[in-house]
C-alpha cells in the first residue's frame, strides 16, 4: 500500500482501542444514501517504475523545441544549485510559517527575498509573494483603489502596453467589486503621453504601466509618473524583475517614483513549466504597506534578545479580518520564492545585469537579421529583449512553418493588437546561442520564400 505504514496488527489494535469493528465503521456518520464504494473513473494503481516509464514517454513527446517565444514567460539558464537546494525536504515539505520558532529557515529566507525585491524595485516594502504576474497586477489595482482615499471612482487607467492577458485576468478578478479599467492608447509601441490629456479632470485611483511593455519596448516612465502624481493618481509599474537589473527602478520614476511595483517573478530562476508554478511579486511605498495583500515577514527579537523573524502586519489578512481582509489570499508561492532568492544570490546584481544585457544583445542580433529579409520590418524601439516583427503575410504561416522544424517562432500579436497588422513578437534570451539565432533566421527566410505575401 503506497505510503500507508500500518501493519494488520496495528489496524486491529487501533480499531480495538477506538471500539470499532472495522474501518468501515468509522464512516458511519455519513448517511447511507451518500456512501459510495468504488471510484470507476480512476484507473488502477501504477508502481513507481510504471509511472516513471509513462511520464518519461509523455515528456519525450513534448521535448527538443528551440524557443523564441516570450510574451510573459522567459527561458533563462537556472544554475543547478537553485533547485537542488530549493527542493530540500525542509523547504519543500514545510508549510506556512505560523509557528515562527519552528520556521526560521523559511522566515529568514522570505526576509532576504523581501530585501532583494526592495533593492530591485527601489521601493520600501515587499510581501512574501502572490500567485503570478497577472494576479499580482490585479491585486495591485485593488490595493490602489483601497489606498487612494482621494479617489472615489473605482476607475484605473491601464496602458495598452500592459500584457493583454493580465488585463483580462484583472478584469475577471476586480469586476465583482465594480472596479473599471480604462485603456490608455499606444503610439509607436509605447504609452502615448500626449493621449493622457483626454483624461484630464477625471477621477482615477491609479495608472498602470508595464516595463518593458508587452511589445518589448521600454517606456519613458518618468513623464507618465509625474503626470499621474500631479493629479493624485497612484502609479503602478508591472515590471520584468530581470530587466530591473538594467533599467531604472520604478522607485526612481519621475520626481517621486512609482507607488507600487508588481510583476511576474518567473525570470528569476523559475522554469517555464507550461506556465506555472511561477510567483507574483509586489513592492510598495511605506505609506501603503497596510493595504498590501498577502503575507509579510518582519524581523524581531526573541526573549533572549536574539534576532528572529515572524509573520507580521497580520491584521490585514483573511484569517484575522475575514470579510474585511485586504485579499482572500492565504497560500502563496513560497517554494518559488525560495528558488528565486537562491537564484538572485548566485547571480548578484552584476550577474543579473549581464544576463539582461545578453538577452538584449541576442534579441538585437535576431531583429537586425530579420529586418534584412524582404517583407519583414522591426516595428518599434528601444526594446529590451522582445521585438515586434511586422510581416507582409499572416504571422501564423511563419509560426507553423517553423513549428514543423521544432522552432517556436514567437507570439502572434494579431488577436490582441490588430492595429499592428501581421505581427510577431520575438524573444531571444541569453539561453539562445548565435547558432540558434542563425538557424532561426534561415528557417524564417525559407518560410518567407515558400509562402505568399498577403
Amino acid at each position: 500500500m503506497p505510503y500507508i505504514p500500518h501493519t494488520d496488527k496495528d489496524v486491529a489494535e487501533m480499531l480495538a482501542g477506538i471500539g470499532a469493528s472495522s474501518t468501515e465503521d468509522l464512516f458511519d456518520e455519513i448517511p447511507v444514501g451518500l456512501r459510495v464504494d468504488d471510484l470507476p473513473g480512476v484507473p488502477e494503481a501504477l508502481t513507481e517504475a510504471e509511472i516513471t516509464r509513462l511520464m518519461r514517454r509523455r515528456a519525450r513527446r513534448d521535448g527538443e523545441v528551440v524557443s523564441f517565444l516570450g510574451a510573459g514567460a522567459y527561458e533563462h539558464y537556472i544554475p543547478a544549485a537553485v533547485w537542488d537546494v530549493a527542493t530540500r525536504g525542509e523547504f519543500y515539505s514545510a508549510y506556512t510559517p505560523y509557528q515562527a520558532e519552528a520556521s526560521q529557515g523559511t522566515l529568514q529566507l522570505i526576509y532576504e527575498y523581501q530585501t532583494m525585491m526592495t533593492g530591485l524595485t527601489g521601493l520600501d516594502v515587499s510581501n512574501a509573494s502572490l500567485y503570478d504576474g497577472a494576479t499580482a497586477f490585479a491585486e495591485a489595482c485593488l490595493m490602489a483603489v483601497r489606498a487612494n482615499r482621494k479617489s472615489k471612482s473605482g476607475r484605473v487607467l491601464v496602458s495598452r502596453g500592459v500584457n493583454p492577458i493580465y488585463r483580462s485576468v484583472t478584469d475577471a478578478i476586480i469586476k465583482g467589486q465594480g472596479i473599471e479599467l480604462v485603456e490608455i492608447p499606444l503610439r509607436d509601441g509605447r504609452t502615448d503621453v500626449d493621449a493622457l490629456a483626454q483624461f484630464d479632470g477625471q477621477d482615477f485611483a491609479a495608472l498602470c504601466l508595464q516595463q518593458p511593455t508587452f511589445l518589448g519596448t521600454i517606456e519613458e516612465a518618468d513623464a507618465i509618473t509625474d503626470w499621474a502624481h500631479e493629479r493624485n493618481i497612484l502609479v503602478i509599474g508591472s515590471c520584468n524583475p530581470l530587466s530591473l537589473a538594467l533599467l531604472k527602478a520604478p522607485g526612481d520614476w519621475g520626481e517621486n517614483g512609482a507607488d507600487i511595483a508588481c510583476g511576474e517573478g518567473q525570470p528569476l530562476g523559475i522554469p517555464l513549466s507550461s506556465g506555472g508554478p511561477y510567483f507574483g511579486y509586489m513592492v510598495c511605498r511605506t505609506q501603503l504597506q497596510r493595504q498590501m495583500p498577502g503575507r509579510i515577514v518582519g524581523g524581531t527579537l526573541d526573549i533572549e534578545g536574539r534576532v528572529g523573524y515572524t509573520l507580521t502586519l497580520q491584521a490585514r489578512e483573511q484569517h484575522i479580518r475575514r470579510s474585511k481582509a485586504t485579499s482572500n489570499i492565504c497560500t502563496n508561492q513560497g517554494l518559488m520564492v525560495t528558488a528565486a532568492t537562491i537564484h538572485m544570490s548566485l547571480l548578484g546584481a552584476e550577474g543579473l545585469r549581464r544576463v539582461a544585457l545578453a538577452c538584449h544583445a541576442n534579441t538585437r542580433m535576431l531583429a537586425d537579421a530579420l529586418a534584412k529579409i524582404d517583407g519583414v520590418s522591426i516595428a518599434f524601439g528601444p526594446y529590451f529583449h522582445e521585438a515586434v516583427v511586422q510581416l507582409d503575410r499572416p504571422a501564423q504561416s511563419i509560426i507553423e512553418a517553423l513549428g514543423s522544424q521544432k522552432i517556436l517562432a514567437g507570439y502572434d500579436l494579431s488577436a490582441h493588437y490588430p492595429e499592428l497588422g501581421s505581427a510577431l513578437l520575438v524573444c531571444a534570451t541569453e539561453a539562445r546561442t548565435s547558432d540558434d539565432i542563425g538557424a532561426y533566421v534561415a528557417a524564417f527566410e525559407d518560410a518567407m520564400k515558400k509562402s505568399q505575401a498577403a
Partner: protein
Amino acid sequence: MSEPLIFEISQRGRRAPSHAPSDVPEHDLPADLLREDPPLLPEVSELQVVRHFTRLSQRNFSIDTEFYPLGSCTMKYNPKACNRLAMLPEFLERHPLGAVEHGQGFLECMYELQDMLAAVTGMAATSLTPMAGAQGEFAGVAMIRAYHDANGDHERREIIVPDAAHGTNPATATMCGCVAVEIPTGADGDIDMDALRDAVGPQTAGIMLTNPSTLGVFERKITEVAKIVHDAGGLLYYDGANLNAILGRAFPGDMGFDVMHLNLHKTFSTPHGGGGPGSGAVCVNERLEPFLPIPVVGKKIVDGEDRYVWLTEADRPRSIGRLSAFMGNAGILLRAYIYMRILGREGMRRVSEFATLNANYLMKRLADLGFDVAFPERRASHEFIVSLKAITSETGITAMDFAKALLDRGFHAPTTYFPLLIPECLLIEPTETEARQDLDAFANALAEIRDLARSDPDAVKAAPMTTPVRRLDDVRAARHLDLAWRPADDASQ
C-alpha cells in the same frame, strides 16, 4: 547558533561568475532609461550560497523531518517520485504558449487529471487553473454570481458561511462583490438548521460549506441543507479543504453541491513549499460548466488519434474568464496527477480509510489520557479538536504554550485557536501516512506537557528551548516594523 543574513556574508567584488555570460555586450539604450546604481543584492560564492540556504533549511520543521499534525492543512508525505517526474527536463522547458503539437504529453496528463478529479467528487467537469484554495473559492463564488446574473437574478448577493468557516470564505465573498452572512453551529457540531432557514431568501446567492466541517465532524444533515438552499434559489459551494476525510467514500456532487474546489496540496499531496504553491482546481455540475474559468483542456479525435487542445474564450463564451496568466500551477498539477496514478482507484479510498483511522485512534488515546475532545460523542473525520480550556483555567498554560512545548519534543504544533468557536483549542490532523508509534509518541508528549503544566508551569511557559530562536516578540515585530535589511551606512533607514 544564528545564521547571518546573506547580505552580511556578502563582500563587494565577489561573484559566482559562471552563472552569467562572461562578456558584456555593447548596447545603445538611452541612459535616461537605465538605473544608475546596482540593486542591493548579495555578492557571494556558490558554496556560500549553498551553505547558507542549506543551513536555513535546517532551521525549519517539515514533513520530511517531523510529525506535522497541522489541522485543516493535511500535511501528509509528499512522495519523491511526484517531484522528480514533474521535473523531467522536457516538462520544465515547455513554454506555456507553445503550440499544442509540442505539448500533447503534458496536455494528456492534464485532461486525465480533469477527469479523475471530476470522478472523485461526483461532479461533471473540472478547471485546473486556480492557483490555491482561496483562488478556487474565488472561482466558485464568481461562477455562482455569473449563474445568477445569467438568469437575471441580480439581487442575489449574499453568501452564507458557518461561523466555523475558514477566513478565506468570507474574504472571498467580499472579493466577488458579495456579502458574507454568518450562521451559527449547533451544540452537536452540525449547522443550526433554524438559523439557516432564517438566513435564506431571494437575496441568497449561495452557501459555502466544508464537509466534514472545520470542527472535524461530518455534517449529517447535508441533504436537508442542500434542499433548503436550493429551494431558496441559492447554490452550494463545497470547500474541499477536508476532502481527505471522505475521498472515495462520498461525493460532494451527491450531497447536492454545485461547485467546489480541491486543495491539491492537501488531498493530492503536492508540496506545501513553506507557504505554496498550492493548487485549487474547481469542479462543477452541469449547470455551472459553461462558467468554468478558462483555459480547460479538451480532447478531439483527429485522423483517428486523440488530440488535446485548449478550450478558451471562443469555446466557453460564458466563462468567468482567466484567473492566471497561463493555466495555473501546471507543475503542481503534474505532481497531483502522478500521485493519483500511483495510488489508483483503491489507493484513493485507503487515503480516507487510514486518515480517519489515525484521527479516531489519536482522539481516543487523548480522551483516555484525560484530554477534553470537543465532540466526544461524534466520530472524528480526518481531524478532531482538543480543548485545553480546563487545563488553562487550572494552570494558566494555554494552547499556545502547549504548541511551543511540542516543538521542544520534536513535533510540529497542531493548528491553534482555529476554529474560533472552541476556546484554547488544538485542531489535530495526523493524516494517513503517519505510523501508529508516532501517534502514540505525540499523545504521550501532550500528556507529559499537561503534567508539567501542573507541576512546573513556568517550565512550559519557557518553551521552546531547543528551536533556533525562543519565543519571538510579535508585538515588537508589528510596532517596530523591520521588513527589509539595510546596510549600516544607509542613511535613509
